[in-house]
């Protein structure tokens, strides 16, 4: 599996199977073996210790994606997510230890949206990346192109989304090389969903929306009748196992506000310009009301020719224009009442 390659899961796993699983007193770390010919294998630290639940854990700065520790106690510690999917005997010591509480917050909070219409798929997102109250990055990129005809929107922890997108891009390319055809959006969504499944229950938080155009190269039987013979597709994949196909998705803390604008205006027959302005308005309204969304709007349009990116637009100007309009309306209203 992909993440296992990065973390040298296979070699570490074999080591721990052959040697008896040691009951290590806390504080002892197994020395990393750089010279073993593998890139690196230092992730098997044995800082297992029982942490009783304390009130500061409830106030832990990580609010999003943090599964309550009761779930983790069942099988093994969440520091070894790989082992949940393996056939390692369950008589692990320290089985009731929970994950180490992190002393720092993760980047989170966003508004992303995507919808299908007659001119393809339109994806839009804000660019603010926040870390429990601090804006970690006002210009982050939440729409990541995976290949020429597939674009993914990310929501959740930014590190998780960035890395999993990379892993997905690699797996799609490998599929294309091995099978001679490109995997459809539906297949890519299924692949991502299955890759994330071993990490269900851990703190991983990825909520991705995949928007793509499936060319004639993808195999038969992958299209439904509802998409009116168009090859675009839109999927929502979440790290808790959800995989949904739809015509309209909005994800993130600002999604309720975006949904209200989109539900009002989106229909199949939109022109490209109308669709762009609705998407922009939806993100703008979400940034207006949601504290964790803001800064700029990114927009990608996917058609049979691939994805095109619109220049990033700073919403600051829009706020000033809105202020002018309001001021203008107020003076107009005042003139009207005076003239009665």
């Amino acid at each position, binding site marked *: 599996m992909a993440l296992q390659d990065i973390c040298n899961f296979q070699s570490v796993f074999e080591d721990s199977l052959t040697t008896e699983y040691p009951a290590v007193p806390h504080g002892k770390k197994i020395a990393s073996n750089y010279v073993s010919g593998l890139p690196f294998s*230092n992730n098997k630290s044995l800082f297992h210790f029982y942490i009783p639940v304390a009130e500061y854990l409830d106030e832990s700065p990580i609010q999003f994606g943090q599964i309550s520790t009761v779930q983790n106690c069942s099988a093994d510690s969440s520091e070894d997510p790989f082992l949940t999917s393996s056939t390692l005997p369950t008589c692990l010591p320290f089985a009731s230890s929970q994950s180490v509480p992190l002393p720092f917050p993760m980047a989170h909070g966003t508004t992303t949206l995507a919808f299908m219409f007659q001119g393809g798929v339109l994806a839009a997102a804000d660019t603010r990346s926040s870390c429990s109250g601090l804006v970690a990055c006002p210009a982050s990129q939440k729409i990541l192109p995976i290949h020429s005809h597939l674009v993914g929107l990310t929501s959740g922890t930014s590190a998780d989304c960035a890395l999993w997108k990379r892993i997905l891009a690699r797996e799609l390319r490998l599929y294309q090389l091995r099978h001679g055809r490109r995997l459809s959006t539906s297949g890519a969504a299924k692949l991502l969903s299955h890759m994330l499944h071993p990490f269900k229950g851990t703190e991983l938080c990825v909520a991705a929306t995949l928007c793509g155009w499936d060319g004639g190269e993808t195999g038969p039987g992958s299209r439904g009748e509802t998409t009116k013979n168009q090859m675009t597709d839109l999927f929502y994949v979440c790290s808790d196992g959800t995989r949904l196909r739809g015509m309209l998705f909005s994800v993130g803390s600002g999604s309720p506000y975006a949904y209200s604008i989109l539900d009002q205006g989106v229909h199949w027959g939109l022109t490209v310009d109308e669709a762009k302005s609705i998407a922009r308005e939806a993100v703008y309204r979400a940034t207006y009301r949601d504290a964790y969304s803001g800064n700029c709007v990114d927009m990608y349009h996917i058609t049979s020719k691939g994805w095109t990116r619109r220049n990033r637009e700073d919403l600051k100007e829009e706020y000033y224009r809105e202020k002018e309009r309001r001021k203008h309306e107020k003076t107009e209203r005042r003139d009207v009442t005076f003239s009665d």
Partner: protein
Amino acid sequence: MLFTCMFQHFGDPGKMKDYHYTGPVEHKFSPYAFNGGTVLAVAGEDFAIVASDTRLSEGYSIHSRDSPKCYKLTDTTVLGCSGFHGDCLTLTKIIDARLKMYKHSNNKTMTSGAIAAMLSTILYSRRFFPYYVYNIIGGLDEEGKGAVYSFDPVGSYQRDTYKAGGSASAMLQPLLDNQIGFKNMEGVEHVPLTKDKAVQLVKDVFISAAERDVYTGDALRICVITKEGINEETIPLRKD
């Protein structure tokens, strides 16, 4: 390593703690500690600057006044890491080893962009027990332009023009936004940053940070990276 000192950073900032006897308190072993320190990096047209203070603290004590947080990786790249000193040391050891391996198998030094991508995967490999380190890489890219890559503790990164990390980052980043990014100012001419002006700005910025952040002070180590090489300079800061 007691956890009590962490509250002022990540707990509720405005709430006063009530000091009265609540019963026996169990102190847990925490594998993390916060050793303070601030790191800053600025990228210019043909130079990059990585600067850090040199104070190593823990709780109310100062362990060392001469522990700089800039680590030279290659002739064109410097890494600044602050946070938990133990993880900083291990991480730099791992990066050095990986750089050597790359050099031996590919017969060339890693570029700044490649180091950044590699650091991202190294950090993410410890997704469920992260390195408590805030990294900023400063260096020159293949075209000779300055590049700054900023990371979060689990490996999310991107290329910036300037970034501050560590304990005083929340104080310094808005100042850099204003002075280098010309943000939140109207009608100002955007002059490109020269190397001397950038060095002076970094010095001023750290002096301000030392005034207001207890974990920043003692001395400032500035590494200026140009195509001629890396030039290091140490300037004293407040010691209290």
